[in-house]
């Protein structure tokens, strides 16, 4: 019996090559997409599970769910003082460590070089985070001035990983510190939220001696707290105790006569390290995380693509049912029960699914490496084990086989033998099955069109983000980093002067905020007549900044080096007397239009000459500041982020970046700038980037997303078209007689082509009606994540509809022409 079924099934596959290829190819593509996405989902959900003791290792995060001013913020970072208090207050906490990320300059053989992802820890990180070691012992960080490097970093710096006992010298805060390397870490895998090349232990009390407020400031989230909880500790119980803990620990502050407590806006939470990568907090991260929504979207799209392939399978099976009607009738006459027939047809569909999954596995093996490289992920493709693909593949065969086979099986086994045999029909068509096919084709094209629209909108927004007017002249800027290094304190102005003399340089400015710089600094400003302070971005700039960035003054004036009140420079470190004198004297500031509006001005001119008070910390009170100018709003950051209300403070020293506007050949200017830097500054490496490259990097994630959507859309369209191709072939065959009649009655080839094309265009046109509202809703939601966004015009919708229609027509046109040109005699002579 079964041998007969298998023979019939294989013969059926071999006989109808077109249908077999369409089914197998479509299913294989859909299954491969599912398997690859599964590998990706497993990777994304596996973060930090490899870490020994992960179940007891936690990150302590800071949340601002409802800030008085600005959007909610969820940070992975926390303040240093919180770590001290956690250790003190919770016996369940076994050990903690506070780490700062840095890229200190390394000194080797008298030369300096930059570093990346070096952590400065205040304690024994290895006793909290159980990082695997290749050399040395777990006690490697048990005292200050100890260090560990990863295997790769050891090789990069020393050419060998046999570095235990060696010394490494770093320049930190202007001083050179020697560290003893006590251990070598295994390189961290990519599926970790941790990004570490080396860990360097320092005593923070002495390290921050010149900035002691860092050690007690609750609002300074500058590093990460990791805690090891005692085994068996329930994190929920611990988290429930945090509101009371914060009340006990955070002191009230006085700001302009109003009581203020950092804890009012902030919440804290212990989050297990395995949940950090996909967690709620995705700001102030060590490495970029991901969100569950994106992963769910990918999973849904992969399933949709698979379902499209299953639809093809069902559609072609029912469409061709008539071809097998006689076989069914004969089997019934010979005594087959309906159950046996259903089993036979489901068996056939399982066989097809099995062959398809073998192709899918081969495709996945081929594609996993490029896919992983594209996603910058360590994707693996094994068959057995916890991440094995064998079980999912078997599940796919069963699910796809049953989904694709059950309906046709019931449909085919329903044929009544007497009528089928008597009618002697070759193409019996059961009423209703055609309608179901149309509905399924509409569904397929709705998915394809929606994905094309998503691709177009995501791509359009990327283009928009790169080209939208940022409010300043964003091109032809070379942005130089490392200006905040201690070695450069007091030398910035002189350096800027030398840069100005380089041929091709038009203007030079120094600033805390430049083209997509990471700095984020806010301060409360008290406005007369208001009780609540207004939060404004607070960035130091020099007088050259306006011309270097191409800012436009819309009211008042820009900073003038000749006016002392425009300058807030202090020495470093600042002395209390200096700050008191500055607070007593007051200062001039320039704000942007948004800040002027936040301060209550209807038009920029209104705030010129107004004096407000700027909070200078609990010890110094508030400084009167007078607004002397308003500049046009500028988007210095990604368009994802809201526009900053900015207050610029004039300074001659102490900024983080230098912006150099140039004309002429970029490479020549860059070479000139680097030469001058290296002559002037021997102990800080030169790091600079062109604004065009910075913007390119800024929207890389969006670009990548557009590419992923494009990939999905192409797969969807290919599968939908495979199905349409099959249906067109079937229809052309079924309608041969009708077309013959029409031709005999005078229809031209073109009339017939038009008839068939219209038959298949209708479901595609109807699909638009479903795809458009859904895509509009999803894309509007996505675009709302951007502070400034492209208008959602009908264009991408019409283009997507047009593209789908064009591809559908091209797919079936071949068939249509073939049948339309056929000689009608052949079609009409025999029934």
């Amino acid at each position, binding site marked *: 019996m079964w041998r007969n079924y298998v023979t019939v099934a294989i013969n059926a596959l071999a006989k109808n090559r077109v249908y077999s290829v369409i089914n197998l190819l479509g299913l294989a593509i859909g299954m491969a997409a599912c398997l690859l996405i599964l590998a990706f989902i497993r990777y994304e959900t596996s973060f930090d599970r490899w870490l020994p003791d992960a179940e007891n290792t936690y990150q302590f995060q800071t949340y601002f769910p409802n800030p008085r001013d600005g959007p909610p913020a969820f940070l992975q970072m926390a303040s240093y003082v919180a770590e001290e208090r956690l250790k003190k207050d919770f016996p369940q906490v076994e050990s903690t460590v506070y780490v700062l990320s840095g890229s200190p300059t390394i000194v080797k053989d008298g030369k300096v070089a930059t570093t990346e992802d070096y952590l400065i820890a205040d304690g024994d990180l290895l006793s909290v985070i159980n990082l695997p070691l290749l050399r040395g012992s777990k006690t490697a960080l048990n005292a200050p001035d100890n260090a560990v490097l990863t295997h790769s970093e050891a090789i990069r710096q020393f050419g060998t990983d046999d570095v235990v006992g060696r010394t490494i010298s770093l320049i930190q805060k202007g001083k050179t510190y020697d560290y003893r390397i006590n251990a070598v870490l295994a390189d961290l895998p990519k599926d970790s939220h941790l990004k570490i090349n080396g860990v360097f232990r320092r005593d923070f009390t002495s390290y921050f001696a010149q900035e002691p407020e860092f050690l007690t400031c609750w609002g300074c989230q500058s590093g990460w707290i990791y805690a090891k909880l005692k085994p068996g500790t329930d994190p929920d119980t611990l988290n429930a105790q945090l509101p009371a803990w914060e009340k006990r620990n955070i002191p009230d502050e006085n700001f302009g006569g109003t009581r203020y407590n950092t804890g009012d806006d902030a919440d804290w939470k212990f989050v297990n390290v395995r949940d950090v990568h996909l967690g709620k907090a995705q700001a102030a991260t060590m490495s970029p995380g991901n969100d569950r929504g994106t992963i769910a979207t990918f999973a849904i799209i992969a399933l949709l693509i698979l379902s499209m392939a299953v639809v093809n399978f069902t559609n072609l099976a029912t469409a061709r049912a008539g071809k097998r009607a006689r076989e069914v009738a004969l089997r019934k006459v010979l005594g087959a029960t309906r159950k046996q027939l259903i089993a036979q047809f489901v068996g056939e569909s399982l066989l097809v699914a099995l062959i398809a999954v073998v192709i899918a596995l081969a495709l996945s093996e081929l594609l996993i490496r490029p896919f992983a490289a594209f996603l910058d992920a360590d994707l693996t493709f094994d068959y057995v084990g916890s991440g094995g693909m064998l079980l999912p593949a078997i599940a796919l065969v069963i699910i796809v086989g049953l989904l694709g086979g059950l309906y046709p099986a019931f449909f085919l086994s329903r044929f009544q033998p007497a009528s089928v045999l008597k009618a002697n029909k070759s193409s019996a068509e059961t009423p209703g099955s055609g309608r179901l096919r149309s509905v399924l084709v509409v569904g397929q094209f709705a998915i394809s069109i929606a994905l094309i629209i998503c691709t177009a909108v995501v791509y359009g927004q990327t283009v928009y983000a790169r080209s939208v007017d940022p409010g300043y002249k964003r091109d032809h800027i070379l942005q130089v980093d490392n200006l905040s290094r201690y070695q450069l304190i007091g030398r910035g102005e002189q350096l800027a002067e030398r840069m100005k003399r380089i041929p091709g340089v038009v203007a030079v400015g120094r600033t805390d905020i430049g083209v997509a710089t990471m700095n984020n600094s806010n301060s409360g400003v008290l406005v007369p007549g208001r009780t609540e302070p207004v939060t404004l971005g607070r960035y130091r700039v020099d007088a050259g900044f306006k011309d270097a960035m191409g800012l436009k003054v819309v009211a008042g004036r820009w900073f003038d080096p000749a006016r002392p009140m425009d300058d807030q420079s202090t020495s470093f470190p600042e002395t209390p007397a200096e700050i008191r004198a500055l607070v007593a004297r007051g200062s001039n500031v320039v704000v942007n239009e948004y800040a002027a509006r936040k301060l209550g001005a209807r038009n920029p001119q209104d705030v010129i000459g107004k004096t407000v008070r700027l909070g200078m910390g609990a010890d110094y009170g508030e400084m009167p500041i007078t607004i002397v100018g308003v500049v046009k709003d500028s988007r210095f950051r990604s368009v994802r982020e809201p526009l900053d209300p900015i207050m610029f403070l004039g300074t001659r020293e102490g900024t983080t970046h230098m912006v150099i506007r140039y004309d002429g050949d970029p490479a020549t200017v860059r070479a000139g700038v680097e030469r001058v830097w290296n002559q002037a500054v021997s102990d800080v490496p030169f790091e600079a980037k062109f604004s065009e490259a910075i913007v390119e990097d800024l929207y890389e994630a969006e670009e990548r997303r557009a590419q992923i959507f494009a990939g999905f859309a192409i797969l969807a369209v290919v599968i939908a078209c495979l199905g349409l191709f099959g249906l067109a072939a079937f229809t052309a065959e079924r309608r041969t007689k009708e077309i013959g*009649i029409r031709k005999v009655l005078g229809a*031209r080839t073109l009339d017939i082509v038009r008839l068939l094309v219209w038959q298949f265009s209708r479901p595609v046109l109807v699909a638009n009606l479903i795809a458009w509202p859904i895509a509009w809703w999803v894309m509007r939601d996505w675009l709302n994540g951007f502070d400034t966004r492209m208008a959602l015009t009908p264009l991408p919708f019409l283009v997507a509809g047009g593209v789908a229609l064009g591809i559908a027509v091209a797919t079936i046109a071949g068939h249509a022409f073939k049948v339309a040109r056929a000689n009608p005699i052949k079609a009409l002579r025999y029934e």
Partner: protein
Amino acid sequence: MLRMRDVMRLYRTDSVETVALDGIDLDIAAGEFVAIMGPSGCGKSTLLNVIGLLDSPTGGSYVFDTTEVAGLGEAKLAEFRKANIGFIFQSFNLVDELTVRDNIELALLYHDVSARERRARTEEVMDRVGIAHRARHRPSQLSGGQQQRVAVARALVAAPKLILADEPTGNLDTNHGEEVMRMLQQLNGEGSTIVMVTHSPAHADYASRVVNMLDGRILQERRRAA
């Protein structure tokens, strides 16, 4: 109406050359009812297809009215066919998905005829063949005789100069066969020119002239005494 001289139709495959029509000379005048007879494979249907411009001769001359149609291209042939010829088939060749009315109207769809006129002419021709009461039915709901009436109506509706019928009674029982033949005779009486292929000598007797074929040639012609 049509004049054929030395018409040849060869079919070639890689190894075999089949002569389907071998030097046919045939004249048919307007108003004639011609029956073509002969054993299976003698070339009757090929001749009918060539006459109906569904197939082109590979040699000889074929003048329809005053036009030499032997060398015309496919598009021209389609135009010519549309303007002059109606077909009736043995297997009716109705479109299963369309109603009786729509099947008949189909023949006008490719002519430059307004919707109103199409409707009127369809109604008229349905009356004429006595099928008006089944206008909304599908072909599958009709008897064989009724289906062939629909096919005749469809052949008539465009008012062709020539009606070609390929074994129009082949799929019908005796009663229905007679019914269709009487109808064709009536149409001929009303002025239609008809060329019919048939196996049945009894049905051939309805024609005014009988042409007998064998192996692609005309063996004998016989006129019925008026």
